[in-house]
């Protein structure tokens, strides 16, 4: 891997890319409109979201119980259950299963956990042909890009860019005049791959404890075509994906799908439970579930249990003013946007990811739209607190804040400094506005600052009321 540029460099590159902004707005704009319509038709949403929160909290509170229950029921259905402490361990388990089966080709249905643990890379490193079957994942595989959104991984590509990619890579691309034509070309391109793969790999939206089933939700039908024909189906799932029963999964599905796309249910809601049975005409001979920790138990024990509620709907990304300007890649991590800024410091370490919790206006819209009421701003503030305690802030910021706090505890000094500033600022003013001033470049690079006049409110008040 080449040297990863720092956050501000990535941000600058994203902001300088006008096509990216168009692409982000086309998809997130549609998503926001559709979600708003779905919510307008669901006045009971606040109660439903409180229930979703309580279901997840209940599972997190009893996580060991539900994991063991799920394992017991899955094994009874013939599933092979594996446990992985880390992403590397999970990838190794998957690669070992593929090797043992002498697999050559692997189809993959989109899974953010797979991206998180670096599974695509691990499969390629093991010499396996990796075929991404989700349309968006197919696009970014052709482009060699990482995903830029957790629901729409190819959101950063405009239709024009997708057409260009398909023309370059597809056997029979056709005219590519419409999105319909592009989708049809991908259908032709991937059809045979589905049937020829040795192993199909997918993720999980929910693990159903009382049946041992794995629930996935998709719209394209690629997931079932990925998991049914191959000899082996492997699921990688985070340990937080459990729900007590199918009925609980249904309550979560209402929240997940409306929050993600505004639809009431995805086209395909599938429950996988074990390998092909004697009487079945199709289905995999082996069914594996890899339960992955990769930082989740640490979150449980480090004040981030609420983040384990996350069901990866992407609503917080679609409504985030920062994400909407810089897109997913600028975050430099698997999970972008507000949820990503909480998760990435867990996965990559706070020192490396310290900018993410800071690059947020704390406007709270993410929490407002979250279907499981995760207090994202509070969790981001929590990272800022850790960052402050560990001294990650640039020294200038730190000292400025310490000096400011010292003065804020001393009203006379505070007012003296304030009045001093108010006498200096007008020196830079032209027509009431300051457009350049030393030490104010962060502000004045992009906007003007009104020049203050007449001293502080407190001083004017004393003068006026002769106190």
């Amino acid at each position, binding site marked *: 891997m080449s040297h990863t540029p720092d956050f501000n460099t990535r941000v600058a590159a994203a902001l300088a890319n006008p096509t990216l902004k168009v692409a982000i707005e086309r998809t997130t*704009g549609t998503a926001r409109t559709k979600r708003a319509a779905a919510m307008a038709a669901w006045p009971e949403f606040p109660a439903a979201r409180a229930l979703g929160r309580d279901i997840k909290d209940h599972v997190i509170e009893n996580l060991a119980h539900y994991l063991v229950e799920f394992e017991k029921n899955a094994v009874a259905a013939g599933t092979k259950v594996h446990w992985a402490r880390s992403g590397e361990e999970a990838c190794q388990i998957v690669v070992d299963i593929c090797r043992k089966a002498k697999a050559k080709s692997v189809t993959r249905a989109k899974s953010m956990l797979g991206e998180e643990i670096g599974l695509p890379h691990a499969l390629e490193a093991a010499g396996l042909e990796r075929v991404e079957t989700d349309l968006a994942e197919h696009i970014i595989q052709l482009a060699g890009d990482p995903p830029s959104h957790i629901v729409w991984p190819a959101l950063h590509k405009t239709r024009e860019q997708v057409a260009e990619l398909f023309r370059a890579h597809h056997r029979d691309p056709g005219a590519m005049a419409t999105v319909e034509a592009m989708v049809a070309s991908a*259908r032709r391109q991937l059809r045979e791959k589905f049937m020829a793969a040795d192993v199909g790999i997918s993720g999980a939206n929910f693990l159903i404890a009382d049946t041992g089933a794995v629930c996935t939700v998709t719209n394209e*039908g690629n997931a079932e075509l990925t998991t049914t024909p191959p000899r082996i189906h492997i699921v990688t799932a985070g340990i937080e994906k459990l729900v007590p029963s199918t009925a609980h999964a*249904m309550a979560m599905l209402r929240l997940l799908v409306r929050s993600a796309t505004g639809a009431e*249910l995805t086209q395909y809601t599938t*429950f*996988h*439970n074990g390998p092909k049975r004697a009487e079945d005409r199709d289905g995999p001979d082996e069914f594996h579930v890899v339960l992955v920790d990769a930082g989740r138990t640490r979150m449980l024990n480090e004040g981030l249990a609420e983040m384990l509620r996350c069901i990866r709907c992407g609503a917080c990304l679609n409504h985030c003013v920062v994400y909407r300007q810089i897109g997913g890649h600028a975050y430099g991590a698997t999970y972008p946007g507000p949820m990503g800024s909480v998760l990435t410091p867990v996965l990559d370490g706070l020192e490396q990811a310290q900018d993410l919790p800071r690059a947020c206006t704390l406007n709270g819209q993410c929490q407002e739209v979250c279907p499981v009421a995760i207090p994202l701003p509070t969790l981001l503030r929590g990272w800022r607190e850790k960052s402050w305690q560990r001294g990650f802030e640039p020294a200038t910021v730190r000292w400025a804040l310490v000096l400011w706090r010292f003065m804020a505890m001393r009203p006379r000094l505070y007012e003296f400094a304030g009045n001093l500033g108010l006498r200096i600022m007008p020196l830079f003013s032209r027509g009431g506005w300051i457009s350049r001033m030393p030490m104010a470049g962060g502000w004045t690079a992009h906007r003007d600052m009104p020049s203050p006049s007449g001293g502080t409110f407190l001083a004017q008040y004393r003068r006026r009321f002769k106190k």
Partner: protein
Amino acid sequence: MNDARTEILKAIGKVPGNPATIAAQAQRLRAGACRPDRVNGPADEVFIERLRSPGVAATAERVATMQDFPDAVRRYLAAHQLAPALALQPHPDLQALDWSGIATHEHIATDEPAAVGLALGGIAETGSLVFHSSSVSPTLFCFLPLHHIVAVRASQIWPWLEDYADAFAGCAQPRNVNLITGASGTTDIEGTLVRGAHGPGWLHAVLIGNA
């Protein structure tokens, strides 16, 4: 692997509580009043209305008996200018019908133009068709055809998603459950919805009989 299992369970750090208490807590966490106001009439009527709603965008019709289903299929094939040939889901209730004039086959091809199936039931709330995999219901029949024509009995419509879940709670589970809500689609290019991504591009439901 056992090390990983032990370590993860240990890292969770809590001694699991009493299973009966946990089950009772879980039982209290069920959706009731907070569900969207969707099922506000007879389940079969709501079901057909949801199927036809813009969000699901399937087509649907009703016939009186199972014997009327082949005619509905014939009409569908003609209307869509499809050849009179299709993959017939190997279900005895379908095989017992008179398919004369249509060449049916049991093996489904990768690019099957049309397939006929029988759903286990439907869910009114969402307009979903329910399939359980079995010897008479292979999973790929729902995903390989371009046109999927599905019979579903009006007496087998569950009002809410939870009603379906409860009907099979505590029973032996099928290998595969597919809740199918409209034809395959994708919004992966600029959020624009396009039907017929990898699965069927058309879904037609034929509701059999009365509730």
